[in-house]
């Protein structure tokens, strides 16, 4: 026997032995590994029985679904979508029995001989098995078990049942699971009404829901849509002309008021609150019905106003357009709108883009409000200091002694001093030296006490500068606190959840809209009247210049180095706070080095939002308490003035304060100075 023949013989026997051992090993491996395969639920539709937690807006619209599935039968899904999914994911779906032999061979060939390319061969049934039972860990054992479960599913259920289960559980991103939910989230319509173009767009998402998210990466999603349409044409479901026409069709993504994507600052707030109360498991798996205070239209306007304002700010600050997703490189913004007479949060924007950064600046930001805090000082001064809005004070350079520390020398924003003026004018023009003198007169404690009575909960340092807003607060706190002034001193806790029900409609909790009077109505009105001057003729006059003409009061705020710009203002019904600034606390200056103030950065956003939010509303004035009288005074010396005097200023005075404006019995001139300096 020749050597080669002996070798051939040895190879033959070895091969035979290996084949036998391999077959035996495979059988043993099969029986061992399938013993603890997961049980497949029967019926398969059981996988989509979990009720979702539904979140509703105040208008009754459902704005979010968490967990659960919005299951629809295949007859409730557009045939275009079914064709698109089959063409893209598994075009031999109707013919195979869980495994696509040809595709496996092709994938084997590609993966083996085409370096750098990886091709999968998972059928729709295998994907279903993977999604239902397995992790996304890439191991051969996991693949084998997934294959085995797929074979069982194919043996037990018909193709329609399999496809129905599949389309009802695929993840489309932004919290949408299942085609019905995805169709509602992205197009605001039922899955049955999806057009070819829309169906192709959605069918392309499961490959990488984040990468192809059309709400964030529209062009990428369009490219993927093109691939799907090409596959549909290649498989023969549509002609190439139809594919081209569909590709050119206009896509109307998510109309306003439709389901919100999972990531939004307001919903994040609601979810965190619910999780604190009920636990994460209950929120995500128990199918709660949550009725919130959100007004979707106001929310849309709030988001739009913040976006527009920040885009303008980008231009003014010359921030480069492409900052590589670095949230800190752009100025950020926040807006909170609170219903004054209940504390209900009607709109909340916590930043430029939730997908970029989930940090909710409307709540979690503790930034200095600057002069935005002065209304609390002025209330405290009117209440404790015995002054009136007509009291004359002197705008001059001052040094406020601080025990154990160097004297505090506040500077005016303009760097100049105007001399004597009445309190109302000092607040309208946000004169720091006057504010410093006032806090020097009454101390910081009454200021802090007033802020607390209005609902400010953040830590406030008991130092004189607290009156000029050197302790951090959030926009939500500011909006709610100013609402206490808007209501004439009645404080409501801000809230965002009205009622929570279980899946069968049993009430678990409902909000009681309680309130308490924390401020004196007449003094609160005097402060509101002074804040009206801020908007009408003071630092917040931008609001009027931008076209918002309804009765309103407010206060600008700007911190040192222009790190923060605020505007908090209110009408008798709605209190709104806007903040803009960099997350890293950088200075905001334009090309000429001029800083961005509250009037320049935040007030335009406020004005744009309020114009839209109050469009068509009747003119409503602030309620005037019975013991308030209006008097025209000279804003410099506080002396009574004739209404037609162009320099006169109207002040709101309480009963006792009027005496100073009436001729005294001894014939002396009235003196409204009230002891002010």
């Amino acid at each position, binding site marked *: *026997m*020749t050597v080669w*023949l002996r070798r*051939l*013989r040895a190879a033959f026997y070895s091969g035979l032995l290996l084949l036998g051992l391999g077959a035996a090993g495979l059988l043993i491996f*099969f029986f061992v590994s*399938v*013993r*603890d*395969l*997961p*049980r*497949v*639920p*029967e019926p398969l539709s*059981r*996988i989509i029985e*979990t009720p979702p937690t539904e979140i509703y807006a105040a208008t009754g619209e459902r704005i979010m679904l968490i*967990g659960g599935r919005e299951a629809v039968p295949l007859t409730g899904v557009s045939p275009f979508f079914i064709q698109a999914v089959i063409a893209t994911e598994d075009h031999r779906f109707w013919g*195979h*029995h*869980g*495994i696509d*032999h040809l595709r496996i061979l092709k994938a084997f060939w590609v993966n083996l001989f085409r370096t750098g390319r990886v091709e999968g061969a998972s059928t729709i049934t295998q994907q279903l098995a993977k*999604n*239902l*039972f*397995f*992790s996304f860990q890439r191991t051969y054992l996991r693949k084998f078990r997934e294959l*085995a*479960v797929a*074979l*069982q*599913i*194919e*043996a*037990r259920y018909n193709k329609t049942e399999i496809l129905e289960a599949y389309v009802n559980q695929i993840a489309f991103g932004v919290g949408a699971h299942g085609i019905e939910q995805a169709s509602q989230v992205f197009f605001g319509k039922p899955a049955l009404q999806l057009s070819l173009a829309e169906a192709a767009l959605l069918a392309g998402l499961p490959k990488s829901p984040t990468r192809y998210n059309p709400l964030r990466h529209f062009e990428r999603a369009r490219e993927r849509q093109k691939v799907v349409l090409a596959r549909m044409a290649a498989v023969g479901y549509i002609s190439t002309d139809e594919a081209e026409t569909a590709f050119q069709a206009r896509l109307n993504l998510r109309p306003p008021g439709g389901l919100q994507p999972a990531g939004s600052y307001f919903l994040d707030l609601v979810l965190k609150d619910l999780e604190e109360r*009920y*636990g994460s*498991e*209950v929120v*995500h*798996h*128990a*199918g*709660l019905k949550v009725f919130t205070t959100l007004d979707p239209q106001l929310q849309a306007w709030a988001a739009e106003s913040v976006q527009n304002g920040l885009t303008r700010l980008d231009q003014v600050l010359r921030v480069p357009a492409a900052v590589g997703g670095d949230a800190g490189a752009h100025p950020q913004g926040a807006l909170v709108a609170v219903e004054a007479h*209940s504390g209900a949060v009607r709109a909340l924007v916590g930043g430029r883009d939730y997908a970029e950064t989930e940090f909710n600046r409307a709540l979690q930001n503790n930034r200095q409000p600057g002069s935005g805090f002065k209304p609390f000082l002025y209330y405290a001064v009117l209440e404790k200091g015995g002054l009136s809005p007509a009291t004359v004070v002197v705008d001059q350079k001052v040094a406020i002694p601080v025990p154990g520390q160097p004297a505090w020398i506040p500077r005016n924003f303009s760097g100049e001093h105007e001399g004597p003026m009445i309190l109302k004018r000092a607040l309208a023009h946000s004169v720091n030296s006057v504010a410093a003198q006032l806090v020097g007169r009454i101390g910081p404690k009454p200021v802090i006490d007033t802020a607390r009575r209005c609902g400010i909960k953040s830590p406030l340092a008991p130092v004189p500068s607290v009156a000029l807003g050197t302790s951090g607060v959030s926009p939500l706190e500011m909006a709610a606190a100013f609402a206490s002034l808007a209501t004439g001193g009645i404080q409501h806790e801000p809230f965002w959840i*009205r009622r929570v029900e*279980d*899946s069968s409609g*049993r*009430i*678990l909790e*409902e*909000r*009681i*809209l*309680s*309130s308490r009077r924390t401020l004196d109505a007449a003094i609160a009105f005097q402060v509101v009247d002074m804040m009206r001057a801020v908007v009408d003729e003071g630092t917040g006059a931008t609001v009027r210049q931008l076209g918002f003409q309804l009765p309103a009061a407010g206060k600008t705020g700007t911190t040192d180095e222009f790190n923060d710009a605020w505007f908090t203002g209110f009408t008798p019904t709605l209190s709104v706070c806007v903040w803009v600034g960099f997350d890293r606390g950088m200075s905001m200056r334009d090309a000429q080095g001029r800083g961005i103030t509250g009037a320049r950065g935040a007030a335009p956003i406020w004005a744009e939002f309020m114009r839209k939010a109050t469009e068509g509303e009747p003119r409503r004035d602030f309620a005037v308490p019975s013991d308030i009288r209006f008097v025209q005074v000279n804003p410099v010396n506080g002396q009574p003035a004739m209404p037609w005097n162009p320099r006169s200023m109207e002040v709101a005075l309480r009963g006792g304060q009027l005496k100073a404006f009436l001729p005294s019995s001894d014939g002396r001139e009235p003196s409204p100075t009230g002891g002010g300096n």
Partner: protein
Amino acid sequence: MTEWIEPKDGRPWAARIFSRQGVLTALAALAMLASEAKLHWVERSVGAYLVSTNADRPESGAIWEKGRKAQTARMAVDKLAADREANQRLARNAGTLNEIIASLSPGQGVMLSAEHFRELYQKIPQGIAAEMISPFDLLRFASERQWNRVYLEQSADGLMVYLLAPNNHVLRQFKVASANLALMARKSAMASQSLEDLPSFQNRIYSAERFFAALASLPEEDRRGLIPQPERLLEVSEQISRVGISDEALAGFIDVGVEIRSGSQRRVLLLQGQDWAVWRLRSLLEGKTPAARGAKTSQGTYSAQ
């Protein structure tokens, strides 16, 4: 039996391989492969086997885990809802405010209809009721048709009562202090007791004859002040044996305990008389002129001594 002989060179090997037997074996193998490609019998067999063992396999994997979480979550929510419903049911069927208060833990609350609250309010001892909220205020809210429901919430130091408009806006809120709640609870327990069992009455217990004789000698206004609703006593069919006057006054009212005997059973019916009228009667009973109005105690009640 055929003896196995190993060929010594390649030719017999080839002859064997390409023999009819060898070709048939190869064809059979090919046929199996082709039938598998066409009929998927391997997949079907494996699938059928797995279907047959499905019931014995564990409920593991993402979907089962999610199902378990959902079940646990639903049970938790069911309990919350059931507890709330039980409280609501109890509140709906409650005959007195005390029954509701007793069923609530701190932080828990129940919603009542305005009508039901008014019924319960009428059963609260007058002194406590007047301290909670004036009946005239309730009448005003009722007439304005704004008042829709009442929310009662137990807190650590008392009971918060919220009168609500239909949109859950609070029309009026007030707190019933723990001391008053305790007093109400004590009073509701008096029904099955005798006057000696009630410490506040122990100093002033009079026979019914003596009490009503003294009462009859007072002017009509005083009598009305002392027993504003005499019809409650007229409704009693059993014998009124004794009457006690409490040592404590609350919000201008003093309790008058009327002991009713039925065989060996005794019970006390409580009435709230206005303090000035009670003092007048007490002076008559004790043969003195009316005493000083008393001093406030730490519990917020007034000692008539």
